[in-house]
């Protein structure tokens, strides 16, 4: 307490209590920067909303949004004493009054000292926000053939590239989809987009404009959806990807998407983007929610204060999206017609005088180096003031200049009680944003007052009810997918394929005089193999429908909040829970999703543990075997497999934490988005994409595997047709590795080969078994069990399921792991670990089940 000067810390506040931030004392610079970037700067009012069910982390409300951070980090954030708060507020009021006095000449106030800069910003803003429907202010205008807007013919057909930049979970991908007609994945949790995506805005037909179609007036317009970022600090992969794209590839304009319900925190990024000296337009998203909340944003005032066009939109409903495209084109036309030479829309009041002075001193030292490196000068100066290592490296400063820059930075840092240059710059930006919001935003609700999301959270993150509700939801999803509706629909599909399609095809081909081997290939190879996988299509659709609801509603982030403490026990953070949960869908995107981890240790741990989360491709195998041998307790058997996977993931995590990744835990700073009603369109898109993916796989690689396996199973090494499959090429090959699985009770060549085919795609295990044992897809579970009984007993079947659950994921997943881990050593370790655990645990299960199962 001594170094805090008797001040309380944020971690000492109880739910419902508020305080004003004095300083962030966290020793780890990266953690401190992340906390400051999220808006925890001196003077900010914070309210503790709740404590997670297990006592950690806590949820706080600040700047109109909710943030979750750990107790140990909260204890490092000191709060102001009463007198300090009053003095600061007085100082802020004076600053605001001063700012008002020096405001834009447009508003009838006195001119600022940098009057030229303001005049240009005001002119530009007025030009874009005026009611004129013309695309630019040139004389030679023609009507667009499609939408009848006035356009500049000289600017037509010039390809343009627009970058979509914004905070995580602010609606970038929704807008991207709305403008390009794309189907990119959207979710209500931060970190959905991990890499940039490009899409072309298509020129619609005349009649389609205004009906979810945007006129590009003949432009070849490309949109680039960048990962969500909170700032342009180089502390995460997403931030580096986004800023490199803007600085190096210089898009024609930036569309900065700002979440209107979370204006302050979003504008923090906006002011940083302004410094990049690219033409910019602000898309003020979620305006429908702003209205619903009773808040009011003065869009014109916001536009004038920022000096950039601001267009209110709702990407979810499509409101204002076409207007945004028109305004973006105006902006580009303006550039093309040299409307505004030396384009720089940085508002002059962005930084306090002291920061301003410091960064200009740096500017004098590095101007020529920044020009040579092709970096925006103003941004370079500020980044050097923030000690940005990547910028320092790009500039290649001589040692003498670098020493002078460091001296300025040290002087700047020493001038404040915060003693930290990065925090001071962030604080300066937030103060500017605070002034803009004070003028343009009126909130209907005070901070800490219960919103709809808070009311839902009182139940879903309740101290005692949160975990039972979470497990209840999981059980419901499993029940729906594997037992009731899913099982009914799967039976129906298998009946259709096994009782109608295959017999009909066999009869037709035989009646038409087809060769018997070709009939066998089509009916016993392709249709049985592909059909065996398609049977599980309804279950996959239901599983993804449920996961989509969890993601879109905002419950996913709450799961991270609830699970952070238990996850820390085995060296992970609550953030890892989201990719791990995605791993139940597909390991490949989940592995990529691990990029959102704050440090390399967490990322590696998450990727190593992901294969323990049973992906949906294994579902057909579980469905087949569990249905055959455990018909009555099918859902329970499948649930036990998922539970074993999770348990072994936890145990591996504990071991890795102790042996491979000892050391400090990564920080946990996560935004809790408001609950939203999932849209039918997004849910449908999500489910369709997965179903499409599944069908695509069935129609390509499963098809090919079925043909290859049929061939290998039907011919001997001399390429003669064989009656007894054990004498076939496959039988001989499988016979070599089959003894390895004798201890587990499934040492037949069929099971061994089925497991090998699973390395290509897990669904192939089912098609292999269906072909090898020749059971009908529409057969009753008893008939499948009889067909498999040559190899499996209920005990060995369960051991087989455990092996399938735990052994190496498919080749594509291993390849993705290699790419994300960037280490052949770690990838090899992951593969070895999975095989070893699968082999040992399936053997242990086989032994332990001896007294209970035949």
């Amino acid at each position: 307490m001594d170094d805090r000067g008797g001040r309380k810390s944020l971690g000492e506040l109880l739910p419902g209590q508020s305080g004003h931030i004095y300083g962030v004392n966290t020793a780890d610079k990266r953690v401190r920067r992340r906390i400051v970037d999220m808006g925890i700067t001196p003077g900010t009012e914070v309210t503790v909303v709740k404590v997670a069910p297990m006592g950690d982390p806590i949820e706080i409300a600040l700047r109109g949004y909710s943030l979750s951070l750990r107790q140990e980090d909260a204890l490092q954030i000191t709060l102001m004493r009463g007198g300090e708060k009053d003095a600061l507020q007085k100082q802020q009021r004076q600053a605001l009054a001063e700012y008002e006095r020096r405001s834009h000449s447009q508003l009838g106030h006195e001119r600022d000292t940098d009057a030229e800069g303001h005049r240009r910003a005001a002119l530009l803003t007025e030009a874009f926000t005026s009611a004129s429907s013309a695309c630019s202010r040139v004389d030679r205008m023609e009507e667009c053939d499609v939408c009848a807007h006035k356009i500049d013919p000289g600017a037509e057909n010039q390809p343009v590239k627009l970058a979509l930049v914004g905070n995580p979970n602010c609606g970038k991908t929704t807008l991207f989809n709305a403008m390009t007609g794309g189907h990119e994945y959207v979710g209500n949790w931060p970190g959905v987009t991990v890499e940039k995506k490009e899409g072309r805005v298509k020129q619609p037909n005349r009649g389609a404009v205004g009906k979810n179609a945007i006129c590009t007036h003949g432009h070849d317009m490309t949109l680039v959806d960048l990962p969500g970022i909170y700032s342009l600090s180089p502390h995460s992969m997403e931030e580096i990807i986004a800023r490199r794209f803007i600085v190096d590839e210089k898009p024609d304009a930036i569309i900065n998407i700002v979440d209107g319900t979370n204006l302050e925190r979003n504008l923090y990024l906006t002011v940083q983007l302004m410094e990049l000296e690219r033409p910019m337009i602000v898309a003020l998203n979620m305006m429908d929610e702003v209205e619903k909340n009773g808040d009011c944003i003065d869009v014109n005032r916001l536009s004038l204060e920022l000096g950039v066009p601001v267009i209110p939109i709702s990407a979810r409903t499509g409101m204002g999206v076409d207007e945004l495209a028109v305004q973006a084109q105006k902006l580009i036309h303006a550039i093309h017609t040299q409307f505004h030479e030396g384009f720089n829309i940085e508002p002059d009041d962005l930084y306090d005088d002291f920061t301003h002075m410091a960064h200009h001193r740096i500017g004098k030292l590095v101007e020529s180096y920044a020009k040579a490196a092709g970096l925006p000068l103003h941004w370079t100066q500020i980044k050097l003031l923030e000690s940005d290592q990547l910028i320092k490296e790009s500039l290649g400063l001589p040692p003498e200049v670098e020493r002078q820059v460091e001296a300025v930075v040290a002087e700047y840092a020493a001038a404040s009680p915060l003693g930290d240059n990065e925090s001071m710059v962030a604080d300066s930006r937030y103060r500017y944003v605070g002034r803009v919001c004070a003028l343009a935003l009126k909130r209907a609700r005070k901070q800490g007052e219960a919103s709809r999301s808070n009311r839902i959270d009182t139940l879903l993150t309740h101290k005692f009810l949160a975990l039972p509700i979470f497990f209840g939801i999981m059980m419901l999803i499993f029940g729906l997918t594997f037992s009731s509706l899913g099982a009914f629909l799967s039976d129906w599909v298998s009946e259709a394929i096994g009782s109608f399609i295959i017999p009909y095809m066999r009869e037709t081909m035989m009646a038409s005089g087809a060769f018997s081997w070709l009939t066998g290939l089509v009916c016993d190879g392709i249709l049985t193999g592909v059909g065996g996988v398609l049977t599980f299509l309804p279950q996959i659709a239901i599983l993804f429908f449920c996961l989509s609801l969890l993601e879109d509603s905002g419950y996913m982030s709450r799961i991270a909040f609830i699970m952070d403490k238990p996850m820390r026990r085995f060296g992970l953070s609550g953030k890892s829970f989201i990719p791990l949960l995605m791993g139940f869908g597909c390991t490949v995107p989940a592995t990529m999703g691990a990029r959102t981890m704050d440090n390399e240790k967490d990322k590696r741990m998450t990727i190593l543990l992901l294969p323990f989360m049973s992906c949906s491709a294994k579902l057909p195998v579980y469905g087949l075997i569990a249905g055959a041998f455990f018909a009555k307790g099918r859902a329970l058997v499948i649930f036990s497999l998922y539970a074993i996977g999770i348990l072994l993931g936890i145990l591996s995590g504990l071991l890795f934490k102790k042996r491979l990744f000892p050391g400090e835990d990564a920080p946990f700073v996560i935004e809790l988005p408001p609950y939203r009603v999932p849209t039918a369109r997004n849910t449908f898109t999500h489910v369709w994409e997965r179903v499409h993916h599944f069908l695509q796989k069935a129609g390509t690689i499963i098809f090919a595997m079925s043909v290859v396996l049929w061939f290998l199973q039907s011919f001997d090494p001399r390429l003669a047709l064989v009656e007894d499959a054990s004498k076939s090429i496959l039988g001989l090959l499988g016979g070599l590795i089959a003894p390895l699985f004798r201890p587990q009770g499934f040492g037949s060549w069929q099971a061994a080969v089925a497991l090998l085919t699973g390395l290509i795609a897990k669904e192939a295990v089912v098609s292999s078994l269906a072909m090898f044992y020749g059971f009908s897809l529409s057969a009753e579970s008893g008939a499948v069990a009889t067909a498999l009984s040559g190899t499996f007993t209920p005990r060995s079947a369960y051991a087989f399921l455990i092996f399938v659950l735990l052994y190496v994921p498919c080749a594509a997943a291993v390849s993705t792991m290699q790419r994300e881990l960037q280490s052949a050593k770690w990838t090899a370790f992951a593969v070895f670990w999975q095989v070893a655990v699968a082999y040992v645990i399936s053997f242990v299960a086989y032994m332990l089940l001896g007294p209970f199962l035949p």
Partner: protein
Amino acid sequence: MIWYILAGLILLYTAWCLVRWWKGRKKGCHGGCADCPKRERCGRR
């Protein structure tokens, strides 16, 4: 004759699927493009 053509088509399609999988495997392709962030570089939209 028609049965030879059918067998040939199955063979060609199988070969195409295997080549496609083999190439995609190197890129970390998992069969579908729905959630693949590399799709713009893949040319298989």
